[in-house]
């Protein structure tokens, strides 16, 4: 299935329809959020927490550029998870930069469902 559609479905809260196809699991998303990944370029291991922090209701800071990152939690930042193109772009970049590869549809759905609960 088209990954873009999957993300739109998850964002739109259509989880009841999609669970059969892709198990969007907030607990798995949380575990993946905290999982550390060794880096091949000599940088210290990183996870989503490295830049976004463990508490999604608080702002983060990009470990490399120092850029402030607005909170990811929709409960404090209503802009989050409202723009599917933006979600696609950042999941692509951040999976590649942190995990070292693109995330598959299930992994993306897990991340989004975790962020939604915050």
């Amino acid at each position: 299935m088209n990954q873009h559609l999957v993300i739109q479905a998850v964002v739109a809260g259509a989880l009841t329809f999609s669970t059969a196809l892709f198990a969007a699991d907030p607990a798995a998303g949380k575990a993946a959020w905290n999982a550390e990944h060794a880096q091949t370029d000599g940088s210290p291991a990183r996870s989503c927490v490295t830049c976004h922090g463990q508490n999604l209701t608080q702002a983060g800071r990009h470990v490399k550029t120092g850029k402030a990152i607005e909170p990811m939690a929709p409960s404090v930042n209503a802009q989050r998870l409202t723009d599917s193109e933006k979600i696609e772009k950042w999941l692509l970049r951040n999976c590649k930069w942190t995990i070292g590869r693109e995330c598959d549809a299930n992994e993306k759905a897990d991340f989004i469902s975790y962020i939604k609960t915050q």
Partner: protein
Amino acid sequence: MNNSKRILTIVTVGLLSLGAVGVAFSEDDDDERGKQKRGSGWVQSRADVAPVTNATYGKECSSCHMAYQPGLLPASAWAQVMTSTALSNHYGDDASLSETSRVEISDYLSANAADRSAQTRSQAFAVADAPNAQNQGDALPRITKTRYFVRKHDEIPMRFVTGNSEVGSFSQCHQCHRGAANGVYNEHQVNIPGHGAWAD
């Protein structure tokens, strides 16, 4: 003996010439002063590097760092930065773009690059990077490695930059150049956090 005296003379003359060149470059800043307009008691500065005008570029690039004006690198350097491969390893981060955005931003940067700019400060960035010697290998061009940039910042102690938590690196233009976002880089708008104004 005579030989070493001759060498000493050559070296001395060489150093004096370098000094003279240094003075000539310092005077550039005085020219900038002359360009300022005064109005209602405020000193207004004109952009010496054309401000960013492309919305896609502004939005996409400033989500991670200051949207550096196109006039800070020559077109050939922007072309290197903007390939898909280069974007996926963008100075140590992944900055991949959709193909539509990549082409639009790349065209914008190229059309407004330092070597195509009317502003004299921009033109200095084009000349500075021409031989591209420091960018041999797979390293991408950097504004902070251009000869003009290096010359303009060579007297700044590193404790004001990398040793300054509010600055961190020379790539954070706006931390000291308070007009950077608007393309104003003259020294009168410099305010180094924790230090203050900088007189060249």
